[in-house]
C-alpha cells in the first residue's frame, strides 16, 4: 500500500508501547542510529496503565514511514505500530504562546485574533499574556503567524497527537506479567 502524505507532506505514525523505563530511550536511539528525521514525537499515557501511546510525525521527503514503522515494530517493547495518514483521523497540536501586551492596542488585537481561532488567553498581565491554541499542526502554525507581529517572547508546542475517526479502535489488551514475591509470573491477560 502506498502511503499518501497529507498536503503538507507529513505522515503520522502511532505506536502503542509498554509503559516502562527506558522505552523512550530505545525509540530515540533507533531514530538516531537509523538516521530517521522526525518532525515531532510525543508520548503520553492511555487508559491502560501499562500502555503508552506515541505519535510520530515524519516528513515524507526526509524519512520513509514504512521503514520507520518496520524498525519500530522490531523493538520488543513496542506492542503495535500503525500508519494513520491514509485513514480519516483527528490530529491535534497544542501551543502555549507568550505575547507582548504592554499597550491597549496589542491587548485588543490579541483578543480579536483569539476570537477567530480555537485559542484562548489563559494568563494576562500588564506586560505579557499567555495564549493557548489547539488545532492541527498546520492550523496552530497559521495562528502563530497571526500573533507573531504582536511580539512573541516565549513559545512551546506539545507536538502532534492523533487518533483515527469512528469505530476503528486502536488498542491493545496488553498487561505485563505480575511478579509475585514467590517468583511466579502470572499473566492476567494474554493476547
Amino acid at each position: 500500500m502506498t502511503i499518501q502524505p497529507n498536503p503538507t507532506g507529513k505522515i503520522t505514525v502511532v505506536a502503542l508501547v509498554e509503559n516502562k523505563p527506558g522505552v523512550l530511550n530505545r525509540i530515540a536511539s533507533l531514530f538516531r542510529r537509523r538516521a530517521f528525521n522526525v518532525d515531532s514525537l510525543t508520548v503520553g499515557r492511555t487508559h491502560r496503565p501499562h500502555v503508552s501511546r506515541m505519535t510520530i510525525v515524519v516528513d515524507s521527503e526526509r524519512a520513509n514511514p514504512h521503514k520507520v514503522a518496520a524498525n519500530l515494530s522490531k523493538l520488543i517493547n513496542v506492542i503495535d505500530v500503525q500508519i494513520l495518514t491514509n485513514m480519516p483521523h483527528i490530529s491535534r497540536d497544542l501551543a502555549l504562546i507568550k505575547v507582548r501586551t504592554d499597550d491597549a492596542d496589542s491587548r485588543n488585537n490579541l483578543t480579536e485574533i483569539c476570537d477567530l481561532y480555537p485559542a484562548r488567553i489563559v494568563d494576562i498581565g500588564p506586560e505579557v499574556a499567555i495564549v493557548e491554541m489547539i488545532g492541527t499542526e498546520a492550523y496552530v502554525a497559521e495562528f502563530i503567524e497571526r500573533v507573531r507581529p504582536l511580539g512573541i517572547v516565549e513559545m512551546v508546542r506539545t507536538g502532534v497527537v492523533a487518533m483515527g475517526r469512528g469505530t476503528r479502535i486502536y488498542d491493545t489488551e496488553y498487561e505485563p506479567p505480575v511478579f509475585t514475591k514467590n517468583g511466579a509470573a502470572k499473566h492476567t491477560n494474554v493476547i
Partner: protein
Amino acid sequence: MKLKGAEIILECLIREGVEVMFGYPGGAILPTYDAMTKYTDKLHHVLVRHEQGASHMADGYARATGKVGVCIATSGPGATNLITGLATAMMDSSPVVAITGQVTVPAIGSDAFQETDVTGATLPVTKHNYLVTEVEELAYIIKEAFHIARTGRPGPVLIDVPKDVQNAITEFIYPEDDIHLPGYRPPEGADDDEIEEMLDLLKNAERPVILAGHGVTMSGANAELQELAERAQIPITLTLLGKGAIPEDHPMVVGWMGMHGDAACNHAIQEADLLIALGMRFDDRVTGNIKTYSPNSKKIHIDIDPSELNKNILVDVPVAGDLKTVLRQVLPKMQDVSHPEWLNRIRDWQEDADERDILKHDTSGKLLTAQVINDLWKYTDGNAITVSDVGQHQMIEAQYYPHQRPSTMLTSGGLGTMGFGFPASIGAKFGKPEEEVWAIVGDGGFQMTLCELATARQENINVNIAIINNAFLGMVRQWQELFYDRRYQSTPMLSPDFCKLAEAYGIPSMRVTDRSQVQESVEFARSIDGPVLIEYVVEKEEMVYPMVPAGADLHDMKRRPKTGEEA
C-alpha cells in the same frame, strides 16, 4: 525452593540447555561465580583472557551449533569489552546471551566503581537488553532473553544483573509457561496473494537466479532451497554467510557473490530477469552500486525481518516470513521448469573464471595464500569447520575452501571484526567437539586476540590455528595499492616469532614456508590432541581477485592479470 539470584541465573541456564559459558569474573559478578561451584557437574565455565574473546567464543559456539552461546562478564570494563563481540553477533544474526554484573541497585547512577550504563551502551548492538532490578523477575527475564535470542531473526541479548539482585533470595519457580511478548511477533508464512505472485514470477522467468543467504541455514530451509533450485532449474548464488547452505559442488551452485565473489555469480545477477533473494539482506558488499544493480530483474525477497524488505534494494514481491515455512507453501504449487540456455550462459561465465589459475603458479621460493587454503581444503577432505578472521585470507578462504555442510564456514561477515576468528574457533570446537576445527587467521587479526592462546592451552581445546602471515595488513595494503598509489601507511606489520610465542604458551607449532610442507602441517596438526599453531609464511604483496571496487557496478570487476602479465 529458596535460591539466591546468582543460583537462579545458573538454574535457568541449565534449563535452557546451556552446557558451557565463556567469561571472566570480577567484583559485580562474583556472587554468580561463587554459585558456579555448586553446578560444576552441569555447567562448564571457560576462563577467557579478555572479555571480547568470551563474546566471540559464545558467537562461534552459536554459529557452529545453532544453539544460544553464553558469555559472562563483570560490570564496567568487563561489560564494555563484550561490545565488539555483541556487535559482531548482531550484524550476523547470531544467538548470544550475555550476562553482566552491575553495581548494586542503590548505587546505579552514582558513578560507582566499575559502573557503566551497559544497557544504554549496548542498545544499538543487541536485539534486546534488560536491567534486572527485582530478583523476582530474574527467571522470567532469562527465559525471555533466550527466547528472543534464538527465535525470529536471531541476535544477541544482554542481561545486566546488579550485585544485590544476585545476592537476593527468593522462591525459585521456573516459569514453565510459554513466553508472551505482545510486541514480539516474528512473521511466519506468506499470504495467498504473495504466494501467487511468487509462483507467477517463477513460472515466467527466463533468467532466474537464487541469492541464498545466512537465513537459509538459520531457518533450516536447506532441503527446500535444493528442491526449489532443482525443480525450477534455478542457479544458486551464495552470500559469504550463505556458504554451506547447500553443498558447493551441487550442480546448481554457481558460487558466491559480491565484492570478491565469483565473476560468474555477479554476471548472472546483473543479467538476470528474476532474483529470488532468500534470507539475505542486499548488503553493500554484495550489491556494489545499487543504482545499477541487476537492472532488468523482477525481485522476490523473503526474509524473516520485515525491516530488511525494501531497505537497500526495492523489490517487487517482498515477503516477511520464515523461509522454510514460505518455501514449503510455494513448492507444492510450483511447476517444474527449465532454462537450458540460461544455464549454458552461466557455465560459459564460470569457465571464464580466472581466480583458479593462481593454483598453477610456479612458486619456487614463495608460497601463495590461495595455495595454502586449497591444500588445507584438500588435506582436510574439505570437511573441517573453518573459522576465518577478516581480510585477504578470509576472502581467499571463501574462494578456495568450498563447504559441503551448513554451519561449517564461520566468519564475521557483516561487521568484519578482526580478532574474531581465533576465539570464535574455540567456541565452535566446544559446540562441535567431534569436528575438526581450523581457525584461519591473518597475522594482523590474530594479534588482536592472541591472548586466548592461554585459554586454548588451559582448556586443552583441540583447535588448529593457521596463521597466514604476509607481514602486512593485506587487505588494507591491497586498497592502498589500488586506490592510494601504493602509499603503504601503517600496513607493514612486525609480528613476534609465532612459533616461539606458541612455545611460550606450551602449544606445539610448525612454520611452513613451502607448498610441499602443507600436507605435513595438516598431518602434524591432526596428530596433536590440543591446540596447535601453524604459521604459513606467504608472499607479502598478494592481491585478491576478482574485485568489485567499493561503490562500483557489480559487473565492473577488476580481474586477475593473466599469468605472465602479473604486476
